[in-house]
């Protein structure tokens, strides 16, 4: 791994560790309607938003693994599995359908968190963790909505931190997937030029017109 890649990977790891400490200390005390924010899930969502599908997948997996270390009642790896899917989904959406603008970060955070909660519960339920749905559907919907609201609150600082963490001159594909052609260095050009697939779709639409 090259120097810049290693530094970028260390910055991301540091961000995840800080997220874990915030989640288990400050986050646990923040309760709205008895529900606390899920900072680790938000990190997975924002990794996909800032770095794309590959970064979302890898960072989401790492974020989930750290989250699994603090849980007791679910199998180790369940959060990692769920969060990498969420990171990928958000990153894929960003690559193909959205432009990365900080202004839409809260919207993406809310959508990604809602999706993440249901993915976590669905995978857990399939794997025999029926206690995740014991409190009922209404409880689950309220939980997802409150967590999404918390994610909106923290989305901008987290997105900004990821922009800083993923900044760098070269793409560390071997280190963090594709963390980056977009996030690493050419953030400005990424914002100006739409993703290739989206561009092709626009051209096709223009031809039809």
């Amino acid at each position, binding site marked *: 791994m090259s120097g810049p890649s290693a530094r970028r990977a260390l910055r991301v790891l540091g961000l995840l560790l800080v997220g*874990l*400490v915030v*989640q*288990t*200390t*400050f*986050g*646990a*005390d*923040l*309760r*709205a*309607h*008895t*529900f*606390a924010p*899920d900072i680790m899930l938000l990190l997975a969502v924002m990794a996909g938003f800032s770095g794309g*599908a*590959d970064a979302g*997948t*890898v960072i989401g*997996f790492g974020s*989930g*693994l750290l*989250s*699994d*270390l*603090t*849980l*007791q*009642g*679910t*199998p*180790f*790896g*369940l959060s*990692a*599995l769920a969060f*990498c*899917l969420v990171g*990928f989904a958000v*990153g*894929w959406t960003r690559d193909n359908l959205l432009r990365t603008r900080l202004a839409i970060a809260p919207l993406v955070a809310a959508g990604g968190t809602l999706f993440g909660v249901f993915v*976590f519960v669905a995978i857990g339920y399939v*794997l*025999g963790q029926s*206690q*995740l749905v*014991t*409190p*009922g559907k209404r*409880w689950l919907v309220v*939980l997802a909505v409150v*967590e999404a609201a918390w994610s909106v609150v923290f989305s901008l600082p987290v997105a900004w931190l990821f922009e800083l963490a993923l900044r760098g001159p*070269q*793409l560390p*594909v071997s280190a963090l*997937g*594709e963390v980056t*052609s977009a996030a690493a260095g050419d953030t400005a050009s990424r914002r100006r030029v739409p993703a290739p697939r989206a561009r092709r779709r626009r051209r096709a639409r223009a031809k039809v017109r």
Partner: protein
Amino acid sequence: MPAARRPRGRFLLLLVVLAGVTLVTLSGRSGNGGVFARARSYAAQVLGPVQSGLHSALAPVGNFISGALEYRSLERQNQLLRQELAAQQSAAVQAQSQIAQADQVLAQEHLGYLAKVPTVAAQVVDVGGSNFEQTVEVNRGSSSGIVVGQPVVDGGGLIGSVTSVSRHLATVTLLDNPSFSVGVRDVRSGAVGVALGEGQGNNDQVINVNVGQRVRKGDYLVTSGLPLEHFPAGVPVGRVSSVFSPVGGFQLSVSMHPIADLADVQFVRVLLWSPQTG
């Protein structure tokens, strides 16, 4: 870098998902022991002091924000508490005689819980950060003789059991956690059942209570202490909040409100008790 040399997103996703599935499978097979349980225990050991320090420092900020968000609810609770306090004061004299009667019943039923069981006092240093698990962390661990499975009580009664231990910390899964279950017995009628956690803020459900049993709203429930139970007999657990007899059903639908205030647990006692040693 040429695009052809970049790892394809879907291949990477597949790889990571396979890694995740492998971890989940291995974790499931290793059960409560094994490398993953040890990793969690080490993580708790490493994070514990940081959590404890930061939690004490930042708790007032978190409480302030939560208080601001829950202002209306707190105001309502405050009003209700004032009403309840007034009602309690007027009933205090009457309660004294009832307490004497209850003591007599407990003595007759040999329910002097904690009388012979050694305990370790502990302070809650952190609450679980996950919304899917109701846990607290206490500042005593294996160095104080605590092992996984031991019951934990506070002034009110049972609050849960120890599910993870490191040297100086232990994680307690609370009574309302959806994976928690405890055998209970109605002090008045003697009916037995199993109380199951239903998630934070929800009343526990009590199952396996036959229709013929005379369980009433307001009855006190204590641990049954039947063979194969993980709790000693006679620990107060909760109070029956509703009883419903379904038409054509063989079992009563009973719900129970825990006696202990699970939302605000601060000091607890871990019972150094196991089904084998008593």
